[in-house]
């Protein structure tokens, strides 16, 4: 019998290979006859392609082929699809412009794909790419979504002459207007949720092989959901039968959303591998990642909160313009709508909410989900409004939150979601204790004596994870199911291989999922291994994003486990000549209730594979079970963050002196891994608040922040050590009681940091500040006010 493993800080199974350099990432895969692809990308934000001349490139030594959009069109390669249909307020479907993998006739952003050169070596392909002659006629470009909607703005796509993809709304507008009419106070903010570039440290990569022997393809790709990648690529773009295509996402070096999507490069190398009957590999250089990975956020929002005289929320009104970039990326359309407006209730009882979103095409890289995806934007709206409202009404920011917390569950919000459970007071209390809010006034005074400004900010976030009940998602426009699949294969001697449709790219599923299985079966964790990321091994999978793996993938595994135990009981009943209903399973042992008769799990497994004494007339041999699980609701992780900053008014530098985060993720399987997820999320959130901001030149549409020098992802000395804790209200609708933890930090941190900075500057008259609050912008804010 083994100790319970759920809740234990088990060291990770995957670490040994990563620590010794034996991980296998896509770029590490070298296939016999390997060739290399380099993409010719648009140097213009918007231009007509007048001609492309390949001859010189084709003559260069080692160049095997050059392909353009025309070649793909001639071969009837389709465009990249969008997986979510949004229907606008006018009842019309969103505008879906063609998204050819290689540009046809026009390029629409800097980095857009114009041609691919395949060579015997990467150097040959690079040299060849230099020799492809493209004649462009530059067109005026627009990079700002608000400007793109104005009359006379350059139009990107013929089917959307006003550049609008859709205008969509959620909530009861009349009821919200009525609530504002009777408000004692209205807080209003207008801000930009800054565009971010994901920058997983492993650049995207794809390596495709075509085999004439059986007319099949294998694609190694840095991707978060290999089955979805395969489905989209085969059914929508290349028109191939799925059983002829294997997609392998081996070790993947971070995703954060940016590796969910079907990208042009994946499709092109797969197609090219057949033309050449040679494997074709492409690995992004970092500068390509900056211009061509799907970006995140980029909202312009006007938000208002109506309150009575006591600070009770009466209604919220939000207008957002979302920049989608030049084309619709795979899930672009649902991020600023379904994953955003539905979260605007936050942790509060705001009775009526109205949100209107206009999504716009611009001459920038496509925008899609990035860690949090819609929910950080929603949390930023809610938590900046709430904190500002408290200051305006001279209420304590914690107190105004307490006055409005949801306290009874289940709770139906006015924006479609039904929260199953939560305890917002508990996380707020704990975070305030940990952050020593009581001692803040003293610390602020002490800092003031040193000439420094201290500020304290809160964020009480909620997120909807575990996406999603497929039928609800379908009704909202999803073009895919959102279940998960799992398989438990018990081997004859009783060890176990778990196959999961979830995908790990840093989350540690090989450990967490093994803990779940070993705990439930009462086996040592060494007896359980987890396999993921290969369509030829895994029965099916929807992959990992939206903090869904443990809640949806974990549940699929538990359901398969239940079947294993149920079958094991039948076998054990036969072996012990007892009634099946008398068999109990208790951590590794099948027992006949009320007797000392028992059979170990391994003995039962052995009997299933060597069925000499076995009920073959009633039961199939073997011990292997699958399950598909479609969730019945979202899960609702929530938490409270308290951030304390110190600002040097002479330099504008903001230092985070204390960051306390208390999260409610429901049941926690491995606290060590969960804390790691929070650390990473918080750091990305702090990055958004303090250092990261993607900028395009407004005239030329060139990416100004195209390297780590200009786009600053946090370095070790930009962030503090964190103080973390959890509170636990188990999710009510999955067997593990889990909610998911991957995105929380990135969702809550930006508002907490900006609330702290604006707290420090409030007395100087600075009510709001744009992210990223770099030293320069903080310094300017302080000195403009001083000058005024």
């Amino acid at each position, binding site marked *: 019998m083994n100790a319970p493993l759920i809740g234990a800080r088990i060291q990770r199974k995957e670490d040994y290979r990563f620590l010794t350099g034996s991980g296998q990432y896509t770029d590490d895969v070298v296939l016999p006859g390997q060739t290399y692809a380099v993409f010719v990308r648009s140097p213009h934000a918007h231009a007509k392609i007048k001609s492309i001349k390949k001859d010189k490139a084709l003559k260069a030594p080692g160049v095997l082929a050059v392909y353009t959009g025309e070649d793909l069109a001639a071969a009837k390669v389709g465009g990249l699809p969008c997986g979510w249909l949004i229907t606008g307020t006018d009842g019309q479907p969103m505008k879906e412009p063609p998204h050819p993998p290689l540009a046809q006739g026009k390029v629409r952003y800097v980095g857009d794909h114009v041609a691919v050169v395949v060579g015997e070596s990467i150097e040959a392909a690079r040299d060849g790419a230099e020799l492809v002659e493209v004649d462009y006629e530059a067109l005026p470009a627009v990079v700002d979504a608000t400007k793109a909607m104005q009359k006379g703005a350059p139009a990107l796509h013929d089917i959307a002459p006003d550049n609008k993809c859709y205008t969509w709304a959620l909530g009861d507008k009349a009821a919200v207007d009525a609530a504002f009419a009777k408000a004692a106070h209205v807080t209003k903010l207008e801000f930009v949720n800054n565009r971010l570039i994901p920058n997983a440290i492993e650049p995207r990569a794809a390596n495709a092989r075509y085999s004439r022997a059986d007319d099949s393809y294998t694609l190694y790709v840095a991707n978060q959901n290999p089955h979805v990648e395969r489905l989209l690529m085969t059914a929508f773009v290349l028109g191939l039968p799925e059983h002829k295509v294997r997609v392998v996402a081996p070790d993947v070096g971070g995703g954060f959303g940016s590796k969910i999507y079907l990208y042009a490069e994946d499709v092109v190398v797969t197609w090219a591998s057949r033309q050449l009957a040679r494997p074709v590999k492409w690995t992004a250089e970092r500068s390509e990642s900056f211009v061509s990975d799907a970006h995140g956020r980029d909202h312009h929002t006007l938000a208002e909160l109506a309150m009575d005289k006591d600070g009770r929320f009466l209604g919220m009104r939000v207008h957002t313009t979302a920049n989608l970039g030049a084309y619709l990326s795979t899930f672009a359309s649902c991020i600023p709508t379904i994953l955003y407006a539905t979260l605007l209730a936050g942790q509060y009882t705001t009775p009526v909410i109205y949100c209107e979103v206009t999504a716009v095409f611009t001459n920038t890289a496509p925008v899609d989900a990035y860690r949090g995806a819609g929910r950080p934007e929603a949390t930023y709206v809610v938590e900046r409004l709430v904190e500002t409202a408290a200051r305006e009404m001279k209420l304590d920011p914690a107190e105004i939150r307490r006055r409005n917390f949801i306290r009874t569950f289940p709770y139906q919000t006015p924006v479609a979601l039904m929260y199953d459970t939560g305890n917002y007071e508990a996380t707020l209390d704990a975070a305030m204790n940990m952050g020593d809010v009581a001692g803040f006034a003293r610390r602020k005074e002490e800092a003031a004596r040193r000439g420094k400004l201290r500020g304290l900010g809160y964020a009480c976030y909620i997120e909807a994870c575990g996406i999603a009940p497929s039928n609800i998602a379908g009704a909202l426009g999803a073009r895919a199911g959102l279940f998960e699949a799992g398989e438990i294969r018990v081997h004859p001697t009783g060890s176990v291989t778990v196959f999961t449709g979830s995908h790990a790219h840093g989350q540690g599923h090989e450990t967490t999922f093994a803990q779940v299985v070993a705990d439930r079966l009462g086996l040592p964790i060494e007896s359980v291994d987890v396999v993921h990321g290969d369509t030829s091994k895994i029965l099916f999978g929807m992959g990992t994003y939206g903090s869904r793996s443990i809640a949806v993938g974990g549940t699929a595994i538990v359901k398969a486990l239940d079947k294993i135990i149920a079958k094991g009981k039948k076998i054990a009943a036969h072996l012990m000549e007892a009634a099946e209903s008398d068999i109990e399973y208790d951590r590794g042992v099948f027992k006949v209730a009320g007797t000392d008769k028992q059979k170990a799990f391994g003995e039962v497994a052995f009997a299933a594979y060597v069925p000499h004494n076995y009920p073959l007339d009633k039961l199939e041999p073997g011990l292997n079970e699958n399950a598909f699980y479609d969730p019945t609701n979202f899960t609702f992780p929530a938490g409270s963050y308290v951030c304390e900053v110190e600002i040097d008014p002479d330099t504008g530098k903001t230092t985070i002196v204390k960051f306390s985060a208390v999260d409610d993720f429901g049941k926690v399987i491995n606290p060590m891994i969960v804390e790691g997820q929070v*650390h990473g999320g918080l750091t990305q959130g702090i990055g958004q608040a303090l250092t990261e901001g993607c900028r395009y030149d407004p005239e030329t549409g060139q990416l100004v922040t195209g390297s780590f020098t200009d786009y600053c992802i946090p370095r*070790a000395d930009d962030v503090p050590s964190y103080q973390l804790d959890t509170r636990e209200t188990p999710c009510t609708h999955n067997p593990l009681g889990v909610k998911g933890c991957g995105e929380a930090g990135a969702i809550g941190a930006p508002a907490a940091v900006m609330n702290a900075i604006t707290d420090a500057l409030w007395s100087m008259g600075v009510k709001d500040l744009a992210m990223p609050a770099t030293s320069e912008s903080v310094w300017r804010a302080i000195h403009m006010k001083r000058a005024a």
Partner: protein
Amino acid sequence: MAVRVSMTVNGKAVSAEVEPRTLLVTFIREHLGLTGTHVGCDTAQCGACTIHMNGKAIKACSMVAMQAQDANVVTIEGVAKPDGTLHPMQAAFKEHHGLQCGFCTPGMVMNAIDFAKSHPNPSEQEVREALEGNLCRCTGYHNIVKAITAGAKAMAG
């Protein structure tokens, strides 16, 4: 026009014909097949390619292979004991959960080992400053800092 480069890598003499423009990191990954050393950027900013050359941590993307002629190079593959036992710094990363996706990890470990030689008992601030040239997008550095602090102590014995 190929040139011959020779050096010692993880204790073994190696030699190959390469184009003069071949980067040291490309030589290690493509010619020697030691893919534990990673490439995360094209501007010598991320540190994923960090190796040891003549005992010092360097970024293998920032020089051509020819510059390592006759050098003694150690990559992440050469850090654990021959029987597979982890180096104390590797063990500290595992114990303190100093890695998630693992992509920055080889570079982090190589840099940390060099740093620890001169800092047997580092402060948090010293560790954070030492990581200036190593980017990690997953861990938020919190546990990397803990790992290096512990690893440095373990190395000092």
